[in-house]
């Protein structure tokens, strides 16, 4: 296994969450945290590390196999790192966008969004079922063009570490040049919001430029209070439900739906239904008079 930045970052994560808790208390922002919500977020983070470690050998083996098939080699020159990070961030953008637009991938990603709070502990709500959802396929093209599998995984890890600090309400806006290029707390608050205008926006990992480029960017407004979570909010703090509820819901829909509609419940966008009894993000946006940019 190559370089994994996560173990080095975890002590910093713990210290920063403690600092944010103290900041929230001192400034009277008592809505920033909720004890049970924090327990579920951190528990999901811990579980995702275990799930990731269990899946890592298989993911690495698949990547190594593809690497052995391609004649292309980028190698480990210093410039391979920033190049790989940039390419990986683009792959992440599409993985993340699919994670919101295809229910199969959403089932694995939804737990990152199911908290109604937005704080540094929310960042650690990572998936347990990424391997099951085969989300790693979005990283395979990088290996196919000659990036070493260990390099790709290291860049993916660095990207994840970058995204930690943007899960906070403690940072308002940063200098314009920074907000223009990088994913920031302001941009990512929009991504975690259920406000209709913010639904399915700002899929970026590190560089917000992808959203600007592919038409999914939405700036945070000062005149609209952000509501966090998912459209159909979770009714409790059962960590297993938080990790698996959408998979179970897919299973129920597959059993109940008529044959012609079954694939839709698996592969269409979350909220799609064959009888129109539910709402997709696009339907909610339309209901509120918000035009889709795409």
């Amino acid at each position, binding site marked *: 296994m190559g370089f994994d930045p996560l173990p080095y970052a975890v002590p910093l994560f713990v210290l920063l969450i403690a600092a944010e808790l103290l900041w929230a208390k001192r400034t009277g922002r008592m809505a920033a945290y909720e004890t049970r919500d924090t327990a579920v977020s951190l528990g999901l983070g811990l579980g995702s590390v275990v799930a990731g470690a269990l899946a890592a050998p298989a993911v690495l083996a698949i990547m190594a196999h593809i690497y052995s098939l391609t004649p292309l080699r980028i190698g480990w020159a210093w410039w391979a790192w920033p190049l790989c990070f940039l390419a990986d961030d683009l792959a992440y953008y599409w993985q993340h966008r699919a994670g919101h637009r295809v229910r199969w991938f959403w089932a694995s990603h939804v737990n990152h969004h199911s908290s*109604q709070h937005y704080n540094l502990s929310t960042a650690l709500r990572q998936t347990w079922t990424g391997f099951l959802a085969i989300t790693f396929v979005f990283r395979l093209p990088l290996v196919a063009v000659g990036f070493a599998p260990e390099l790709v995984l290291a860049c993916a890890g660095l990207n994840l570490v970058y995204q930690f600090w943007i899960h906070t309400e403690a940072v308002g806006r940063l200098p314009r040049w920074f907000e223009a290029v990088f994913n920031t707390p302001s941009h990512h608050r929009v991504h975690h919001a259920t406000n209709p205008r913010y639904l399915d926006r700002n899929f970026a990992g590190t560089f917000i430029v992808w959203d600007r480029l592919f038409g999914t960017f939405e700036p945070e407004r000062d005149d609209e209070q952000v509501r966090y979570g998912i459209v159909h*909010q979770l009714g409790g703090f059962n960590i297993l439900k938080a990790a698996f509820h959408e998979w179970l819901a897919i299973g129920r829909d597959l059993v109940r739906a008529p044959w012609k509609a079954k694939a839709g419940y698996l592969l269409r966008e979350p909220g799609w239904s064959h009888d129109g009894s539910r709402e997709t993000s696009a339907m909610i946006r339309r209901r509120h008079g918000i035009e889709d940019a795409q």
Partner: protein
Amino acid sequence: MSGPLPLALALLAVLALVALAHWLGFSRAAKLSGPDHATALAQSLPGGFSPVDLAISRDGGGALLRDASGQVAIIAPVGAHFVVRLPANRFYARPAGKGLIEVRGEDFAALLDLGEEGARWLAILSGASPAGQ
């Protein structure tokens, strides 16, 4: 994060952070600020929800709403926030003494203090047909 020892350390850190959150007073109950808050929350239901009748629990810990078609929506607390639900599977509402109504569904529960409004809402709830059936 390889090996069982760092994982045990991480678990300890998680427990410490959760204890810190509790100690700092972040184990708070949800509180509705008023009818506008309840109405805004109900907007998250598929197709939206326009209440013509509304009752908020006196402690702000939940609400019942009814629209012109007779459909009832329930706002139930979950931690410091709320969920909005329509009566569906395994839904029931029953008196819990002193004007209190206990409302319970598949993944939510609320104890609503509606005072004198309680009996009227209980009648409405018992007539509310489960959604989607």
